[in-house]
């Protein structure tokens, strides 16, 4: 059983829609950017677009790390950068690695919140209430 003190953050999502959009806040070099990412447990790493990463001063074009990764349309390579803080509600993951890659404009998707963020928590998705709860790991 979870105690109230174990619940770190509880955020809303619209469970009637065909994707789970999560409000995220990125902080880097004294700049911040709020946006909605699609929660994707099939994405190994969080993905943000080039325009977001440039506005946060992440300079993906100068990144020495490139990651080959598989998308639905094949294998590609993209820069890997580290964001100082990524917030979802009241929880934060610091120095999160993110892949910089533009998803198609027609999709309306700005980025993906992937496993490297989610694995820091016990994640509960409640489709009835439309809530994502991020809890402390139980020992």
């Amino acid at each position: 059983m979870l105690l109230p003190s174990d619940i770190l953050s509880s955020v809303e999502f619209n469970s009637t829609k065909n994707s789970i959009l999560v409000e995220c806040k990125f902080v880097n070099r004294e700049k911040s950017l709020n946006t909605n990412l699609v929660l994707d447990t099939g994405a190994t790493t969080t993905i943000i677009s080039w325009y977001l990463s440039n506005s946060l001063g992440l300079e993906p074009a100068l990144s020495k790390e490139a990651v080959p990764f598989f998308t639905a349309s094949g294998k590609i390579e993209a820069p890997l950068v580290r964001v100082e803080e990524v917030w979802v509600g009241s929880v934060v993951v610091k120095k999160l690695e993110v892949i910089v890659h533009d998803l198609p404009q027609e999709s309306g998707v700005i980025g993906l919140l992937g496993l490297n963020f989610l694995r820091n928590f016990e994640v509960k998705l409640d489709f009835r209430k439309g809530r994502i709860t991020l809890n402390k790991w139980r020992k």
Partner: protein
Amino acid sequence: MKLEEVKRKYKDQWVLAEVLKEDVKMHKPESLRVIKASKNRSEMEEAMKKTKVKHLAVYYTGEVPKKGYALAF
């Protein structure tokens, strides 16, 4: 302007906004000033390159995915 108002006023657009006030506990914008709204993402990206604002927000205000489409990445 609240986020819900922005979504209503600029429906199905890419919106770049300045965060004027936020819920400091939940890290969610409470008040926004729209800098650019466009159906074309590249126009919003251009505005993003030019702005000196430090606390930004970017949203796509349409359906994700669009009606009749499926998503797989």
